[in-house]
């Protein structure tokens, strides 16, 4: 019975492939091909072209045993038409705005018009079933970030989970306000240490994770995903600081700079700072080379705070003092805008000495608890 329904649905509803009567969602002459659902089997099932069950199920027996809800195909066909009609109206509006844009010279109004176009494009595509499928079930890395609709979908996903985790950890570990007073997150910052062959440490690092020193001994790959439209390229800086360096004379801690990059040009698609990029152009970007945190024995757990900034102007590449680094003054002086942050933690472990040797940092100190000279309180 179900097969009959599907077959009927397919008769009623078949998207035409001829160019003459193409509606907006099946016309890829102006729209990006990344808005298409590339998997043929899934596409066929979605538009009722096949009767072999859902293409997203790999196993044949599962596919055969699956029963779609009754009437879903013919209702979907009608719904698709209604939504496509709305999308068509929106695309017509976009066309008008684009004509307006071509005549505008003023930079401010160009930006405004582009923003308007982006919101219209999002509204026109967000209900497109193919786009919906891609953004909810496909790998987020494979999405085309030039499309505002995919950026919107990614942003929603980020705000629902990753952003919350990051902010919770930053607050809980006192990264804010210990390093910078606050953060207004604008982009998703993810890091991983690509040199790790061990699967335990080769994934994207969850904020706040405790990591062994050997796992962080090489510079990380940093992914900075912007959700706003980036015209041309934006310049970014990255600072990695450790606010828990022991400062014995003051009986306190000081901040040390462990890694500083500046003037890194990135956009929506080219959004990663990885070793391959640094190999070729590393010198142009590097203010301070990567030096891993090497906690000495019996020091408290140390936080590696990674901050990402948008630059208002290009920075001068000149060496920065690592010890007693004042991140707040630096940020203020250089006019940096914090847009994202990440944190991981480290303690002393058996790999510290090996990493110290690797970077020529000498032997680490060992701290002991010393009984005070004052008598115990009575």
């Amino acid at each position, binding site marked *: 019975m179900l097969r009959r329904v599907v077959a009927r649905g397919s008769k009623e509803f078949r998207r035409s492939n001829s160019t003459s009567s193409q509606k907006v969602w099946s016309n890829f002459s102006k729209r990006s091909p990344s808005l298409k659902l590339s998997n043929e089997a899934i596409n066929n099932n979605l538009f009722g072209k096949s009767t072999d069950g859902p293409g997203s199920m790999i196993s044949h*027996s599962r596919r*055969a*045993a*699956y*029963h779609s*809800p*009754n*009437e*879903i195909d*013919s*209702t979907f066909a*009608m*719904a698709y038409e*209604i939504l496509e009609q709305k999308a068509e109206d929106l695309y017509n509006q976009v066309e008008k705005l684009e004509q307006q844009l071509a005549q505008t010279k003023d930079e401010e109004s160009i930006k405004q018009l582009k923003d308007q176009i982006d919101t219209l494009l999002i509204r026109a595509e967000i209900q497109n079933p193919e786009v919906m499928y891609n953004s909810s079930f496909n790998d987020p890395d494979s999405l085309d970030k030039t499309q505002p609709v995919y950026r919107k979908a990614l942003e929603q996903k980020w705000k629902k989970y990753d952003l919350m985790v990051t902010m919770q950890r930053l607050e809980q570990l006192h990264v804010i306000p210990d390093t910078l007073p606050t953060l207004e997150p604008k982009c998703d910052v993810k890091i991983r240490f690509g040199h790790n062959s061990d699967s335990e440490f080769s994934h994207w690092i969850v904020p706040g994770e405790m990591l062994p020193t050997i796992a962080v001994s090489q510079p990380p790959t940093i992914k900075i995903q912007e959700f706003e439209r980036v015209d041309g390229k934006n310049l970014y800086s990255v600072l990695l600081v450790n606010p828990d360096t022991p400062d014995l004379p003051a009986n306190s801690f000081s901040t040390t700079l462990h890694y500083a990059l500046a003037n890194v040009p990135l956009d929506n698609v080219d959004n990663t700072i990885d070793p391959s990029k640094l190999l070729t152009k590393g010198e142009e970007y590097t203010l301070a080379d990567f030096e891993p945190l090497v906690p000495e024995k019996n020091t408290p757990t140390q936080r590696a705070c990674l901050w990402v900034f948008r630059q208002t102007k290009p920075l001068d590449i000149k060496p920065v003092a690592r010890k007693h680094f004042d991140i707040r003054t630096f940020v203020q002086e250089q006019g940096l805008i914090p847009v994202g942050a990440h944190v991981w933690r480290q303690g002393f472990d058996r790999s510290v000495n090996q990493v110290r040797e690797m970077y020529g940092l000498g032997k680490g100190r060992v701290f002991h608890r010393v009984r005070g000279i004052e008598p115990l309180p009575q």
Partner: protein
Amino acid sequence: MRSVWVTRASIARAYSTQVQPVISSTLLLSRNPIITQEPSSFEKQFYKYQNELWRRLMWTFPSWFFFKPGTVAEQKYRKLNKPATPDNPNIEFPRGRPELRHNRDRRFKQTISVPKSYEDKKGETNAASETDDLARKIVPNSRITEADLKKDLASLERKLSRTLYLIIKEKGSNTWKFPNFNVPTNAEEVSGLHVVAEEGLYKIGGEKINYFNVSNTPCHVFNNLQENKKEYFIKSHILSGIFEPQESVAEFNWLSKEELKDVLPAEYYQDVSHLLNNV
């Protein structure tokens, strides 16, 4: 407060060179829909889809409660509702293994046939018994009535799913309009707009009309500049009875909003269209 108003009005009167407009009351008499409106094709399809989902997610019907085991009714019920194929580990089910609980496959909606309360009588057309017998087969009446087929515009039984409005053509006049009555100026006691409308209705349509006046408050004012007239609209519904045109009325019709658009003068229709029900 009132005295202030009087002075304002008198000033206005003193300065206006025109004659004071005639106040009149227009009756917007409507017949409410008797049957539900026809849903659009998408609505129909959507309801069908949602209904299927709803049935799919329903709990199993507790037939053991309503049809006691061992009774005749239960036997009849069992006859109508054959048990589904149970699961058998020795058999291959390419479309998935059935999961039977209380004789229902949990994977699907449950379709139940209930024993009929009537007997199929073929050829027998005993009208008297059919209308009175409680166990008779219920056959719904057609949504399209005779008046629709005859295109009888003056019938109250036409277009049952729409709101119909009364319009009349007075003797000696050639235009259709809503019934309109002047408020008597020389009467000793002033009667309200709704009273004028009511008296006027009985005068033109006879007294066999049961109608409901929604409010004393007028719902619209139309400035008839040609006749120097102010028409206040009084909204009411006809509930039962019949409009029997008296001598002053040449013709009358009960029309829906779209039909009114073709019949009424364009300007007049434009002015009142928002008062008319789309359904």
